[in-house]
């Protein structure tokens, strides 16, 4: 399975600011995904990060709030813009393996917005 790292592992931010989260994979992968886990909740897909084209967002998530970059097949960033306390969550990236069906997750970024 791929080795996935995320930076930062955690951060505390002030409302109104933005944070960019990085996801690095040790091998080339076709598709990468970004998920959000709000406190005490399950995981929800934010978007699919497509290399060479715009990300595909799920219902309820918009590009202005969660811009995503995917410059190559091993790296992606998620920005949480104009943050509010409701954005306090764990943000996780994931990648597909074995023909895309099985997914593996990075260690997550724990974000607290004050």
């Amino acid at each position, binding site marked *: 399975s791929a080795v996935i790292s995320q930076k930062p592992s955690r951060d505390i931010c002030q409302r109104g600011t933005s944070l960019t989260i990085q996801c690095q994979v040790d091998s080339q992968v076709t598709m990468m995904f970004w998920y959000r*886990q709000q406190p005490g909740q399950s995981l929800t897909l934010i978007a699919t990060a497509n290399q060479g084209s715009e990300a595909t967002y799920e219902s309820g998530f918009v590009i202005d709030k969660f811009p995503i970059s995917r410059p190559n097949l091993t790296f992606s960033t998620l920005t949480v813009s104009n943050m509010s306390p409701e954005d306090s969550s764990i943000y996780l990236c994931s990648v597909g393996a074995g023909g895309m069906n099985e997914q593996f997750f990075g260690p997550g970024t*724990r974000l607290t917005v004050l």
Partner: protein
Amino acid sequence: GIQVEQSPPDLILQEGANSTLRCNFSDSVNNLQWFHQNPWGQLINLFYIPSGTKQNGRLSATTVATERYSLLYISSSQTTDSGVYFCAAQGSGGSNYKLTFGKGTLLTVNP
């Protein structure tokens, strides 16, 4: 989209006990995975099991795709098994690879 339901929502065991966690899904699947989320928030892959039975040490899983459910068995539980267990499924319809997660089962194993 596909719906995923897990039961029970909470489970408390004494060390050494066995348990069964259930995952029901509403549609046929290309992917069915079980994860363990540790106290630090990391998701650990337990099984990739869209059908059939697999075993890994004290853990085993069975998916009956035709009846749309999967079971995770934990035998001789240990305190380190505590945490949240998630089932996630990817529906076979459409072209996206979206994993839909259940709400999880919070397992507490007491010494």
